[in-house]
């Protein structure tokens, strides 16, 4: 497996931001992550694809320890992932996460959703936090919805708010766990556009997705997983036009020809 890094136009400072080494995890008898080695450089956009049940969501969730690992090590910005408590909370604040099911806080307004972390974790002033939240909401195109509750918004709008909520923490890296899988088809693009913009701005991103178009256009590298292993890593052009492993060929033939 060769590491392929495609240089970006607005090159971010180099260095490895997220490093996974020999990571193993079991769910009971199921070996969901098998000897995972993965390095993500600062400013890199890595798209993880693979059949369902291949462990890609679990991989994404281990990076901020929403799932624990059985063995191996994960380091973020040079620091190993802490076990529990304050240290872990501090690290999670630096790792933005966007979920498949949005998970906006249902009892809080859109604005409160985006200010909560700033005020309670970053100890930012409420006024400052609100200004920043409104700017971020404008940036993702839902500024007009600031005073509504999550249930009053469409799925696409909710997911864009979720992205703004994560961005408000000024994370070093953003994790996207199938961000468009719960959306109606006509709303997928509005979320992907926000993500594409984010990638162009140089954010380090790990994206688990089934959106091959996004992988082609925004990813620096595609990681293909199957049965708990990383089977293939390549630049998107190379991966989609000329996959090396049979498993990847099989997967691509099933999703690209209909």
């Amino acid at each position: 497996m060769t590491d392929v890094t495609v240089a970006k136009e607005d090159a971010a400072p180099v260095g490895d931001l997220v490093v996974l080494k020999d990571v193993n995890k079991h769910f009971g008898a199921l070996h969901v992550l098998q000897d995972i080695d993965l390095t993500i450089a600062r400013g890199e956009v890595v798209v993880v694809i693979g059949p369902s049940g291949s462990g890609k969501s679990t991989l994404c969730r281990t990076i901020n320890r929403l799932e624990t690992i059985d063995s191996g090590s994960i380091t973020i910005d040079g620091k190993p992932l802490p076990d529990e408590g304050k240290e872990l909370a501090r690290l999670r604040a630096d790792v933005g996460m966007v979920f498949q099911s949005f998970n906006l806080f249902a009892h809080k307004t859109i604005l409160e959703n985006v200010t909560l972390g700033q005020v309670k974790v970053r100890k930012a002033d409420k006024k400052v936090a609100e200004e920043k939240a409104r700017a971020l909401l404008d940036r993702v195109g839902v500024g007009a919805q600031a005073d509504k509750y999550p249930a009053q918004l469409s799925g696409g709008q909710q997911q864009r708010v979720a992205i703004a909520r994560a961005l408000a923490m000024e994370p070093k890296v953003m994790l996207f766990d199938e961000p468009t899988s719960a959306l109606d088809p006509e709303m997928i693009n509005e979320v992907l556009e926000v993500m594409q913009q984010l990638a162009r701005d140089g954010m380090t991103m790990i994206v688990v997705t089934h959106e091959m178009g996004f992988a082609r256009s925004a990813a620096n590298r595609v990681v293909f997983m199957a049965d708990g292993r990383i089977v293939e890593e390549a630049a998107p052009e190379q991966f989609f036009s000329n996959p090396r492993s049979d498993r990847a060929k099989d997967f691509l033939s099933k999703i690209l020809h209909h």
Partner: protein
Amino acid sequence: MFDFLEGYDLLGAFWATVQLTVYSAIGSLIWGTLLAGMRVGPVPLMRTFGTAYVNFVRNIPLTVIILFSSLGLNQTLGVKLGGGEDFDTINFRLAVLGLIVYTSAFVCEALRSGINTVPLGQAEAARALGLNFGQVLQLIVLPQAFRAAVNPLANVLIALTKNTTVAAVIGVAEASLLMNEMIENEAQLVLIGAVFAFGFVCLTLPTGVLMGLLGKKVAVKR
């Protein structure tokens, strides 16, 4: 028809019932919330304690708990809860304590049912932002749990209002103690029963209606 009521402090007795209810409700809401926090928390010792407490306490008759607080705590161990030598005050406080000990187990379970209505993703998103366990519980999970638990909590409050009658066994001068006294002294047994039943309905019916409205008003839309 109601002249048998003369000479009895009916309102005073029901006022004592209201006081017992209010103090016990506040106390059991606080202690019950803490218990619920323990039961869903990450510390195994606290989880075990919370579970053991609830299962132990809710299976003991309230009468036994109230009698123990009087006979055990007060008469054997000399606990007076700051009531000095005034037996009425001591007994009132002991009754409140017993009611809190008992009712908080049910508050805990009502709240836990509320917590179970909060999707796991809510807590995950909160943790992913960097909030610690206490903040996740306090800012995200409990506010939503309380909103979902308003109706089960109303049931607990209504049960508590009626359970205050058990305080009569240690001589607290609340409504049912007065009722017993009147039944011994007066002839209109059915009417006395009806008057007290009506009195309790006056307390509990509005509770149920108001809490029902509140529950609808604060419900979390998903």
